[in-house]
């Protein structure tokens, strides 16, 4: 395919495909957007090192909060388990004491019948 010189049809295309004039408001809107963008606080434009440090601190903070939450939950579970165990032991001691009393009464009753 030859690109030079252009034939008649290509010349017509060239003439037809001239640049369109940009709309008059394009530049005004653009400069307005540009001004607004420059006025906006740009925290994301902080140095990369600062953003990395902030992200890492946030990550560590979240991890620490999760870890302490889990540890506290486990501690609470252990405490509740221990309390339940103590209650069972107390109940067993009471039962043991009651049975002991009944045994003593039965023995006393047996001795009285023999006499």
């Amino acid at each position, binding site marked *: 395919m030859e690109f030079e010189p252009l034939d008649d049809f290509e010349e017509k295309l060239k003439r*037809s495909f001239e640049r369109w004039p940009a709309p008059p408001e394009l530049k005004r809107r653009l400069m307005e957007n*540009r001004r607004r*963008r420059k006025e906006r606080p740009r925290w994301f434009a902080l140095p990369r090192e600062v953003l990395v440090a902030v992200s890492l601190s946030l990550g560590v903070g979240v991890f620490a909060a999760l870890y302490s939450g889990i540890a506290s939950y486990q501690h609470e579970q252990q405490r509740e388990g221990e309390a339940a165990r103590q209650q069972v032991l107390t109940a067993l001691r009471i039962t043991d004491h009651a049975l002991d009393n009944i045994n003593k009464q039965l023995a006393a009753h047996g001795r009285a019948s023999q006499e």
Partner: protein
Amino acid sequence: MAHDWQPDFEQLVDEHQSMVFSLALRMTGDRGLAEEIAQDVFLEFDRRLGKMESADHARFWLRRVAMSRSVDALRRRQTRGTDRWVEMEDHHGIHAEERTSPLGARLEQLLATLPEPQRAALVLRYQEELTPEEIAAALEAPLATVKSHLQRGLKLLRAKAAIHLKEFVREKECVRGV
């Protein structure tokens, strides 16, 4: 690398807004969308202004980004399945006839019916008068592919023009009562 060129954003906008807008308009066929694309391109350009090494570099960058943003916008719109030029005339009140000759307007309409890669190559070739090598660089495509798009696009456009422009001439003659 240090460079001496001191770009002036406003001056560069004045110089290149017509190019960026025309590329976007010919690629998308939608005046509103073309304006949006031009805005995005120039705002991105402003962010990268410090990296521009020369006027040529700036022009090359603007052309490349205008084309890629237009192609992205077209692909996002493809799902809608609307006819670009019908939409353009119906909703945006743009008439290709307003600036170019009626023949030129027909050619613009025919260009809009070409597949997007062929249209991109032809717009850069005939609007921007770029060589195939420059088009390949602007579209970030292999040279052989660009040459093929140019060849096929031109052939298709010629064929369509042969049919439609005959009808067009016949219509004009009927209107004139020839």
